[in-house]
């Protein structure tokens, strides 16, 4: 690839989200904006080798794409409503001739960042969650349909169809392209956070699948969380939605353990057994700073509590230094905010670490919890572990057996079998 192609490719990768956001703002149509952007990329590939690379490639391409959108609109429509749009687009034009000429002189301020609006559109609750995720990765992340399909293990035509349907619904149902009014802001920011968290988890949770794409999902989620906090701050909305900062902190703190959590043979390494020297201190520091800023806004939420738990782990030099009583208290807080059996399980484990195994067992044996988590092998594995440590070996061995019945991960099974044998022989 020659240097011009490289610049075009880089511009596309780094700035397509921002360029698309601007274009969609002008033409109010996802498909038209995408087509115009493609056209403009081709113009750049043709002209940059001859005329040189413009000073602000992103602005150049935005201007060129707007021209292309006008061309397409002229060819496509003669209807009154489109005429109005065409008129307003032409009026937005700089008095320059052809392609993106002159755009190189454009100052950065003339190229406003409209990505926040685009995030609210892509993560609108009138779209199915899976469509929100795909659309966010596609329009804001610039990921190709094939990449998204392979990340979510979905056939390419299915993913393409999902994207097309989502874009049509935005257009046909009148899903807005704007920052929501104050009354809706909190829940709509939450919707964006939910999508970013899902994208991150898809890349983080599983160790199977294409490793490169999984890493890209994590990086993309963090990048978009950074963009979101930056834009909310610019609009003076960050104090109204500090959970955005907390999600960024949580993702950075998780990601800091990426290298340490996978062993030499691809197996997951438990937090207590990780080599903490491998944790990425740069990401930990950035995560802690984001959390610190959010704490000062005094509006606690579920991401804040989860980030605080993750921060306590990050701050422990050795596993033995972990502040378990603080973590147990935070899980109690999380349980109050978002009641769920899995959070209850985590709290019980933390209480067992902070106090003693019996205290944890009392929480695990609360009526109803065992029923809710009966199919969840980690519940039985955690219960078995506490029973073993409390010296109740017979009960421990039957809990290990239950966990083994439900667990399908080879390495986890090996670990549980080893424990079961130990309990038998002691």
């Amino acid at each position, binding site marked *: 690839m020659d240097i011009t192609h490289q610049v075009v490719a880089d511009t596309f990768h780094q700035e397509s989200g921002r360029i698309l956001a601007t274009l969609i703002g002008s033409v109010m149509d996802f498909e038209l904006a995408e087509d115009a952007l493609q056209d403009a990329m081709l113009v750049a590939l043709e002209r940059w080798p001859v005329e040189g690379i413009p000073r602000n490639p992103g602005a150049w391409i935005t201007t060129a794409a707007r021209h292309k959108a006008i061309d397409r609109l002229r060819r496509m429509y003669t209807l009154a*409503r489109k005429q109005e749009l065409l008129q307003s687009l032409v009026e937005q034009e700089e008095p320059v001739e052809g392609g993106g000429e002159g755009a190189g002189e454009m100052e950065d301020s003339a190229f406003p960042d409209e990505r926040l609006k685009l995030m609210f559109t892509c993560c609108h609750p009138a779209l199915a969650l899976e*469509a929100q995720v795909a659309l966010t990765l596609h329009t804001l992340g610039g990921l190709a349909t094939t990449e998204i399909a392979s990340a979510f293990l979905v056939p390419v035509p299915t993913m393409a169809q999902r994207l097309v349907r989502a874009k049509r619904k935005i257009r046909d*149902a009148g899903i807005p392209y704007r920052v929501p009014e104050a009354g809706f802001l909190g*829940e709509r920011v939450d919707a964006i956070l939910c999508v970013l968290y899902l994208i991150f988890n898809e890349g983080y949770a599983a160790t199977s699948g294409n490793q490169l794409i999984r890493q890209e999902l994590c990086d993309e989620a963090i990048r978009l969380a950074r963009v979101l906090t930056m834009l909310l701050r610019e609009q003076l909305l960050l104090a109204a939605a500090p959970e955005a900062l907390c999600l960024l902190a949580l993702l950075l703190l998780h990601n800091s353990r990426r290298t340490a959590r996978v062993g030499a043979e691809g197996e997951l390494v438990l937090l207590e057994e990780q080599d903490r020297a491998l944790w990425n201190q740069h990401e930990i520091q950035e995560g802690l700073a984001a959390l610190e800023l959010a704490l000062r806004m005094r509006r606690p939420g579920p991401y804040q509590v989860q980030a605080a738990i993750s921060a306590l782990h990050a701050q422990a030099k050795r596993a033995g230094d972990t502040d378990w009583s603080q973590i147990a208290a935070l899980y109690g807080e999380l349980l109050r905010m978002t009641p769920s059996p899995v959070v209850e399980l985590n709290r019980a484990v933390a209480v067992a670490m902070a106090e003693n195994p019996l205290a944890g067992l009392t929480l695990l044996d609360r009526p109803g919890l065992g029923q809710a988590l009966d199919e969840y092998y980690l519940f039985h594995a955690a219960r078995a572990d506490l029973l073993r440590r409390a010296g109740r070996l017979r009960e421990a061995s039957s809990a290990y057996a239950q966990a083994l019945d439900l667990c399908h991960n080879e390495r986890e099974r090996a670990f549980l079998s080893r424990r079961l044998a130990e309990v038998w022989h002691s």
Partner: protein
Amino acid sequence: MRYLLLIYQNEAAHAQYSEQELGAEYEAYNAFGAELRTRGIEVQGGEALMPTSTATTVRVRDGKIATIDGPFAETKEQLGGYYQLNCKDLDEAIELAAKIPAATRGSIEIRPIVEFE
């Protein structure tokens, strides 16, 4: 007496209509409209809706608005009334839908109306 006549049809089959079939359908609706006029029937409203893929369902539970992608799909609730509103965008329609008293117990399905230009 005033009556509301609701049109139900197989969307998937309708999406497969040829140009010719669509044309014939258009003519048939025109003929129906002409008959209403000649018979002096007062038409108080009547619109074509966009397909259910553009639908959004709104419910209010515990004071919180739940916005769901897709049409209303419960069989335990029945159509009880309607409003036809001209809104700025879907967010305004959702906000108003949530204020319809039935939203706290039932569901409000929002369907865009086809604009013939």
